[in-house]
């Protein structure tokens, strides 16, 4: 009799795990950078290569940091959302133009609209490595002390913007 109960036992253990699994979100990849200071950099600006941009220049304000490229098709998906957000003047968006050419990048911004206060050029992708960029686009929320508070891998969706990014920005702006 006992050995015939084995399948039932295995199944019950399995269902306990499944029940616990229901409460977890597999999509939530914890970034080691959350609550860490944004890695410093000083890169040439996209439109004005003579000037530079870095997180140090932005201390004291809450800002959104968006990794983008003109070759990135998924960036087009979130782009209208970013343009709309920049129009509302709620929070400045700074861009990291990732592994891209200056001409292509500028042309892309002219065609699709420029939501960025400024963009920095990361032509060889070094800064991208410091930020642990998995793929483009990625978006970070950085607080007044230069600490990364949120990271979105992949395009920003209206839902993420409304439910996560904007409430967080409001809270951080105090």
């Amino acid at each position, binding site marked *: 009799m006992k050995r015939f109960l084995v399948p*039932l036992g295995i199944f019950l253990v*399995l269902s306990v795990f499944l029940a616990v699994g229901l409460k977890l979100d597999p*999509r939530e990849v914890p970034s080691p950078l959350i609550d860490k200071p944004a890695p410093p950099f000083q890169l040439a600006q996209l439109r004005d290569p003579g000037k530079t941009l870095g997180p140090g220049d932005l201390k004291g304000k809450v800002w959104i940091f968006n990794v983008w490229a003109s070759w990135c098709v998924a960036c087009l998906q979130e782009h209208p959302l970013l343009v709309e957000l920049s129009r509302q003047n709620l929070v400045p968006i700074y861009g990291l133009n990732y592994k891209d050419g200056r001409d292509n990048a500028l042309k892309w911004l002219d065609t699709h609209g420029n939501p960025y206060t400024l963009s920095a050029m990361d032509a060889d992708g070094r800064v991208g490595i410091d930020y642990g960029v998995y793929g483009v686009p990625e978006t970070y929320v950085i607080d007044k002390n230069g600490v990364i508070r949120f990271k979105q891998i992949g395009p920003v969706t209206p839902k993420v913007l409304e439910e996560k990014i904007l409430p967080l920005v409001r809270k951080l702006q105090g």
Partner: protein
Amino acid sequence: MIPELGQFALIIALCIALVQGVLPIVGAARGDVAWMNLARPAAQGQFVFVAIAFGCLAYSFVTNDFSVLNVVNNSNSSLPWYYRFAATWGSHEGSLLLWVLMLTTWMVAVTLFSRHLPLEMVSRILGVMALISVGFLLFMLLTSNPFERLLPAAPDGRDLNPLLQDPGMVIHPPMLYMGYVGFSVAFAFAVAALLGGQLDATWARWSRPWTTMAWVFLTIGIALGSGWAYYELGWGGWWFWDPVENASFMPWLLGTALIHSLAVTEKRGGFKVWTVLLAIMTFSLSLLGTFLVRSGVLTSVHAFATDPARGVFILAFLVVVIGASLTLFAWRAPKVGLGGRFDFVSRESALLANNLFLIVAAASVLLGTLYPLFLDALGLGKISVGPPYFDSVFVPLMAPAIFLMGVGPLAKWKRAELPDLAHRLKWALVVALVTALLLPFTMGKWTPMIAFGLLLALWVAISGVVNLWQRVSQLRTSNGLGTGAQLRGLPRGYYGMLLAHAGVAVFIAGVTLVKGYEVEKDVRMRAGDTVEVGGYTFRLDGFVQVPGPNYEATRGLVSVLKNGERVGTMFPEKRLYRVQQMPMTEAAIDPGFTRDLYVSLGEPVGNDAWVVRIYHKPFVDWIWGGAFLMALGGVLAITDRRYRLARKEEREVSAAASVVIA
């Protein structure tokens, strides 16, 4: 109006299912013929109402009724009508409705082809199936109503996921579901047999064609899904060990084991307990697959929009169905006697060993699929288990099983002699070994994996030929007829087995050759550039913009040259679907018996240059060819004379009986 009608039809179907799930089973326990007789008409009625509901939903999709939330979320007025129709099962809700439609279709099939079954048995089978149906109908009506209204209506829909706008996707889910759901028949047979305490060779004989049929559908469904991934995702891969693929593959592995185990139960009366357990597990894994896809516990490219309430419901349902059937198993199985004895070297042993390999393989796939969940649940961190795990576990498990595939069919039931087997198979082994060792040299590259893969494929193929030849020559000496007459006289079930096994050989050959010899090049190309891949020259001539019904496409024009002569033009596309603004890769494939040429557009990289992926894939189509041969073998086995004879005898007996009564 139409959507309300559909919803109403679902409610009626639920009521019928409740009646069908309770009265016939109670009737069977009490011996009440009137209650048992309810099962058949109830099943047919349930089918009619579910079909009405499905028709209503399809109608809402085809006529662009954007006051239905489901239509708004998964369709668009510029979508071609056939994709609007297919969008009926493109969403979570719609696919559930398809699931139930399939379930009731199988029920009707049971009512039609069960005249030879005792009434108690039919009542229990249909009752169990109805209880499953109750669960799914409740799930739909409580958490996932496909007919939910959106008021005020939307001006237009958000479009069907562009990934699903493809002919393969139109037929892949129905085939897959026919397979998944088809195992519910074998499950219901097993539970009915446990309830009635009637686990014998006849039970196995009844279950066999149903199980094989479901397995055929599942085989085709998985093959279609894999083919779709190959040409639609643009990476040239055909299997990714994605959790959802695994969810369909595990029932397939167990279903394969079940088919073989049923053969032993039918022919030799053995493995009864084992077979029943397999039938329960096969369907349980189908249900588990449904849970994994829809509850959001795992990440996957296939996952539907998730909602915690749904996950809780399916899990509860899973626990009730599987828990109850396994409890019934634990209670009843000890009373089932053992089958006939058999020696260590015998066909039974070979089949049992094969069964074990298949089950361990399924268990290892299950472990790999759920491992991230286990770790996460225990708070040990997040990981993902990828193809390296599955490849390194699966291949070593399957290799001995494939070896046994050559031996088993030649071994005698009950007791076989090892020297005799060795004598009969030695030439097959020698020929396979020599060919496998030498063939790779003629193809330009020799690696142990290629030789090993070819050895397995050749071994299965040649031992099949040896099997046929020996059977014919044995018969010829016993009855003296010519070879042609012998070949015609062999049962279809036997040919089905040979063909399905040959399909495995073709499949292994395809996988081995494509893994061993494929050439993949990702290159940056501008108009006029050429690249050499696998003996062909590909020249990018330029791009044109092509408007589609609901997308804009950039189409590359790629000339293919061999030895300076033009052999064809290929048209890979990058599409941007208007509504969801989602880019899609449409690979251009030039299929062939011995190779596929595969060109797909990656990303534009500036200055009119694109990353272009150009692959030369030798024998890749053998992968799906093998799968379809397996399915065809299953079809041959179902049409075996002995099943038709059994039915005919029954009809004659019942006709005679009615004459007597009259």
